């Protein structure tokens, strides 16, 4: 098994939160999601297709998001993903625990008071 590069560990834990958050306001397709992550992170965070799609499929299997093939005129059909009610609940809980986690880390490292 190839070693996981450092930095990936962080991404792995937060990836689900990122994807779920981006789907909160509207359904999006995979490329849209990956582009938003890259743009909003100022290029710091990037998902390769080989990571993104397995993640989407896993979330779908867990019932947190729902994928749907949509055809629009003059375009190839795309698969759009939206949050399920279960996914909204999961997002809330993940957002909460992320906040808690960040707060705890900040408190411990003293960043807040620096």
């Amino acid at each position: 098994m190839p070693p996981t590069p450092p930095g990936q560990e962080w991404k792995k834990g937060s990836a689900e939160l990122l994807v779920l958050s981006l789907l909160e306001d509207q359904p999006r397709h995979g490329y849209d999601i990956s582009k938003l992550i890259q743009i909003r992170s100022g290029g710091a965070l990037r998902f390769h297709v080989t990571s993104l799609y397995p993640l989407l499929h896993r979330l779908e299997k867990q019932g947190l998001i729902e994928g749907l093939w949509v055809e629009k005129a003059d375009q190839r059909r795309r698969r759009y993903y939206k949050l399920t009610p279960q996914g909204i609940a999961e997002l809330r809980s993940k957002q909460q625990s992320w906040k808690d986690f960040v707060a705890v880390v900040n408190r411990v490292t003293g960043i807040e008071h620096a």
Partner: protein
Amino acid sequence: MPDWKNLIRERIAPLRLEATGEASLIEEVAQHLDDLYRDLRSGGASHEEAYRNTIGELDDLYPLQANLERNQRMPKHDVTEGVWRDLRYAFRTMRKAPVFTLFVVLTLALGIGANTTVFTLINTLLLNPLPVPDSAALAAVQTAEAERTAKASAPLPISYANLKDYQARNRVFLSLAGYTSPRVITWQTHGPSQRLFGELVTGNYFSTLGLIPAKGRFFLPEEDSTPGGHAVAVLNYGTWQTVFGGADDIVGKPLRINNVVFTVVGVAPPKFIGVNAVFGPDVWMPATMAEQLLPNEMQSALSDRAKAIFVGVGRLKPGVSRAQAQANVAAIAADLAREDPAANDGHTATVSPIREAIFGGNGSTFAPILFASAVLLIVVGIVLLIACSNVANLLLARSAARQQEMAVRLAMGASRSRLVRQLLTESVLLGLLSGILGMCFGYAGLRLLLGTLPGTANFMTPKLDATVLAFALIVSMATGFIFGVIPAFRSSRANVTEALKEEARTTGGSRRKVTLASALLVGQVAFSFLLLVTAALFLRSIGRAYDIDPGFQTKHLAVFMTNPGPAGYAKPQTKAFYKDVRERVARLPGVESVSWATNLPLWGRTVNGLQVEGRQARSQADKITTIVNTVDLDYFETAGVVIDRGREFANIDQEAAAPVAIVNEKLARDYWPNGEALGKRIRLPGEPQMRQIVGIARTANYSNWAEPPQLCVYLPLEQNYSDSMALYVRTKGDPEPLMNPVQREIRAAGPQILVGSPRTGREIVDNGLFQAKIVVTLLTVFGLLALGLASIGLYGILAYSVNRRKREIGLRMALGATQGSVLGLILRQGMSLVLTGVLIGFAAALLIGRLLSRMLYGVSASDPISVAGAALMLLAVALLACYLPARGASRVDPLVALREE
């Protein structure tokens, strides 16, 4: 726009995802890459840059594998899934190039079809000719001449009395039966009589073979005991179906045959036509009925050991080898020779595999049939190889077009073996499709071939059985493999970096491919030329053959066979019938003369053991074999056989008068080289008295058209009565209009008598040349097939080369070359290959022609007309095949060609 889906599919293939999940994932990811590529391009990136970055997305497969492992990876069906995937991919590739696929499938189907046809015949005739259980344990018992038992002296039949002794004394057979060859019998219905074929068999015949009747029963033991006592018959299944309409109540029905009322007791199983490969009887009757059924000269066949008409067929006891059986039977033969030297001296018995007896009870015709089959199989095999090499050429040409695809797939991490497997799957699939079509062609070919045979019930029917299916399947798959393997390895060896640089495509880098393809093509042209020349030689030779003088006249001749004896006529009645017919027919307008003879033209019967006065036979093997023909008055004039010296038979040559004979020139010259044969004496086997030679007739053809001279003895009818004879009629003009009136007169003279094989002289010649005509037909068909295939190959190779040289041609034209000079350039390239092929083919034709010269009538093997004709035809077709791509080349637009890359 790159084909992302294929790239992704190739890339994730090693992950072995479950099919439905995979398809959806691929589509999604392809869409993603597509979006990314467009964004990069619109952001100002070059194609290469955008392509590289997009593809980079797929670099790290690990997350895909790790994350999908839990939900979507397939459990175990790796191999089937892989094959299935390859098949789907192959189908997609074929759909993308329907014309190419059609071309390939048609080409191969022709080759496979020809092979299937020939193999079906071989399968029916040689591999599986006798539809009886455990035919390997059957053996034929026949007579042979003692001196040469060890090797292939033609086996002879056994007499009934000897057969009975072999049955009683042998210790090697579970049971030993006997049968005769199919003989003409007359079936007397309420209307005109019909001709059927019947075999006499011993009572244990069917049980020895292990058959079960389709209806009723076979013969009982007591039906084989008293001569003439049991008029029962077993019908051939095919005859029951066709002649008797498959009537349910056939068992118990009376059947009036040769004036004896037989009762049908059973029907043989389907497809069984006796121990015969090609032609069998309509009806089987107990051997004890011989006296009632055989012509008068054979009527003592049951008791006379000199009259041998049976072939023994025995089932060996378990554990007994054929050599042991041979030893046992030979020992009995030696005893028989001691007990009855008059009939049996100098003879022994042979035990041979049953398949040798299947091809004619006497005379070993097995070897020539085996030889002909082998030649035929080689020819169709070469035709198939030509088809394969053409398809390989086309695939090679196409592999250039697919080089980029292969290179991309290799670059993406596909393994070489994976690509080879994929390409082979494609070609084997093509082979199988062609195989299916080829089976249809083969079946059609078989119908066509059988159309030349009379379609009666007692002919063999070719079996399209599991063996043939298996053969076609194996041939198709092997074909797919053969034509696919070289192109597949070539393609998979694609040079990744070179191929990806698109310019690499147009350089002349694949000289070797062209050289190999050209060599294959030259071979093809040579082979088709060879076949065409041979066909032309035979065709010319047949044309010449009609001009050959056979020694009898054919222009104004008609012959009709009659069998008054078997129809129940006694000797005085028969004689009256012969006389009556002669008088009636002679009265018909247009008839010049009429006579009778036992032999039909080209159906001469030979007799072994002629004695010439003053000449002592040194051994049994030294016996003189001669044609014997019993003829009526006026025969020589009617048949057009010239009497050179002496006299014809006349009214004075009565039964009581001194026995006389007329011999042919060959006999006279061979035995009286210095002196006069007239007045000398000869004796025929079985005759008590010597006959004096009163005339010498010109030597004619007796058994075959244009045969080497044979000895012949003519006897007067009055001194050698026969109850089956052929009527010879010499007409003033065309004999055709007289065919029906003559038959009417024969029926008027003898209403119960069957008139068989009415023929004009022209038809006799046609029949005599039948074999040669079949050879011509086959050669022409295969020659044209080979020519067609070679033309396809020529077209393919030139079209491919023109395509590759487009840029060069464009450049030439831009620099001022005319359309004509480009046309000439390509034509020269193609036609130089063709001419090389023709020269090689000509050399081969000269060699083969020497072997064939014995079969050619009056045409030399290097006959200029045949050679020129074949060459012209081949060149014309080849020119067309070259012209099409050459014209395409001359129309290359230099601007387009140079801009293209």
